[in-house]
């Protein structure tokens, strides 16, 4: 039922819909905006991870070669070590594959990922805005309808009391 309204929504005037229909439309738009918002949130979380990974690559430079560091074996236990290789890192490219890359390539890899995510977010954002606008319009029409309903109820009550 609701889907059919949605398909026709572009052509149908919102004011032609009844209150329950509007209510259904609003719930659906609510769900859609929620889904899109959470998608954007997830993309942003992943993007931050890539940004952090890219930033931490800056520590791997020639100046830091041979320096001592503490390697975390668990979250509460560290062992001392020396930074031996500042040129290569292992990057997770997905589905269980890890690739050994040099620092420059890895930076390029993360940049690609960050750009890709930015593009995805930019794709979703307009859709979200559109849904928001539609929801706002639906709510407005609903408010008008509710007011009309209340007024007509009041006036019919008035008629009732005057008769009595």
């Amino acid at each position, binding site marked *: 039922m609701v889907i059919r309204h949605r398909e026709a929504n572009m052509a149908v005037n919102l004011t032609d819909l009844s209150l329950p229909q509007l209510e259904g439309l609003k719930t659906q738009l609510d769900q859609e905006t929620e889904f899109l918002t959470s998608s954007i949130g997830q993309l942003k979380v992943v993007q931050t991870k890539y940004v952090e990974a890219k930033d931490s690559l800056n520590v791997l430079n020639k100046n830091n070669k041979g320096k001592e560091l503490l390697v975390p074996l668990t979250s509460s236990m560290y062992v001392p070590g020396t930074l031996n290789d500042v040129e290569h890192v292992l990057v997770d*490219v997905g*589905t*269980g*594959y*890890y*690739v*050994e*890359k040099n620092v420059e*390539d890895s930076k390029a*890899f993360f940049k690609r990922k960050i750009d890709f995510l930015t593009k995805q977010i930019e794709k979703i954002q307009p859709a979200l805005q559109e849904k928001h606008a539609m929801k706002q319009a639906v709510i407005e029409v609903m408010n008008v309808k509710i007011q009309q309903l209340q007024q007509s109820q009041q006036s019919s009550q008035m008629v009732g009391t005057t008769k009595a």
Partner: protein
Amino acid sequence: MAEVIQKKLQAEVEKYAQMQKDVSKSLSARQKLETQLTENNIVKEELDLLDSTNTVYKLIGPVLVKQDLDEAKSTVAKRLEYINGEIQRHETLLKDMEKKSEQHRELLASLQQEFQKAQGLAVGKA
């Protein structure tokens, strides 16, 4: 008369509900495949950018195992082929099911009409 039709109607409605369940199952399976397809495509793109100076490791359980780049590429290519085939299979399956549901809906509608008619007759007689 009306009771017989009602029983039949109920059975058919149950069948229809089962069909809808199958459709949604197949739909979610297809969605999952779609996700896997995207992920594997991304991996393929990455592997295509590599050359012989890069070493590829495969995570098997908790260990990383060194793997040939060409081997990794062919594995991913095979995987993509398989996933695409599966998506196609689900697609035809879904189309088929949708057609069947459509037919079933019509059957249900006609049954419902029959039932109402029979009910009307029963009331008229009473």
